[in-house]
């Protein structure tokens, strides 16, 4: 089973076309293995992206270097997956 330990979901909100373009370009960077949950739309609209642990630092550094603000929407994806699994098991026992 694939785990998501240390993966985070970042919420990026591009504020202008230039930032939007930069975020769009991230989609092409396969090495980072980013998983866009909400793809870039237009300035002002949130982009949610799941970032594997090894890509977190490079991505955050890239965003910060370009002045693109972001927040951490999900601190550790695996924690939520585990919670969901526990909830399903609990429901089954019930």
């Amino acid at each position, binding site marked *: *089973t*694939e785990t*998501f330990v240390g993966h985070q*979901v970042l*919420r990026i909100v591009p504020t202008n076309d230039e930032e939007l373009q930069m975020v769009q370009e991230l989609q092409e960077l*396969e090495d980072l293995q980013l*998983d*866009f*949950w*909400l*793809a*870039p*739309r*237009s300035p002002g609209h*949130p982009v*949610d992206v*799941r970032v594997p642990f090894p890509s977190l630092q490079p991505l955050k550094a890239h965003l910060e270097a370009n002045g693109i603000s972001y927040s951490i*929407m*999900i601190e550790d*994806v695996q924690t*939520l*997956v585990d*919670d*969901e699994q526990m*909830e*399903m098991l609990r*429901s*089954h026992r*019930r």
Partner: protein
Amino acid sequence: LPFSTATFDYTSYHSLDEIYAFMDLLVAENPNLVSKLEIGQSTENRPIYVLKFSKGGTNRPAIWIDTGIHSREWVTQASGVWFAKKIVLDHENDEGLASILDKMDIFLEIVTNPDGFAFTQAQNRLWRKTRSKQSGSRCVGVDPNRNWDAGFGGSGASKNPCSETYHGPYANSEPEVKAIVDFVKNHGNIKAFISIHSYSQLLLYPYGYTRTPVPHQKELHEISEKAVAALSSLYGTKYKYGSIITTIYQASGGTIDWTYNEGIKYSFTFELRDTGRYGFLLPAKFIVPTAEETWLALKVIMEHARDHPY
């Protein structure tokens, strides 16, 4: 497994086997209303089922609803289960639904991408695509919402098999898509087609592959406005609405662009809840509220289709 759909736990997420068992129970309990059709098989040979809700008649005008084409969007499959039970519970007592079923059949495909769904349960909770193998690539799967014959392969879809929006080698290459295409064509009398995704709280109508507005844009926009108002009336959930390309982004090869071009005027796609905190890991306690509010919007669309035959 539950002994009846009355004791089925609608407040929890369920496995593929449990959902398929639920369908069988629902059919067994309501043989005069519900039947189960197998419309095809997935890449990994899982049966693809559709529930048919009908009061009789032959080839009556119909409404199609599908959930779970993107497998990790678990709240959609769970909502589909809830919709199925809701139709059974309300088909006599709810005047609006009763009159819809007096004139039309409803088809509900709860697990549109069964391979992907099984994969989310066993291997990768966040799997989105189908599970077809791509020749010459180490990557698996096609985005089944980019695989339809409507602007196939155009902008807003990827030719890279490793991408989450990979459009596939050719239109309808995915058996999960082809099964619906064949069903819709063979039926020939589907008047509303609603494809349900999650999570950005949107109600969308065609087109996604072109900026050209659909000829029925005004009517579809007005229906969307009413449907969203109904949805929001329950818990205040905020939805945006409009055409795919103007509301989110360009996306080619999408489901409802094909259905609209096929002549199904009332073609819509939902993006159900999340408030932006959990994404595809929406806690199970949100299933029923999400389904309840969505049902109100679905009824608006279905009633409009009932009252505006074409």
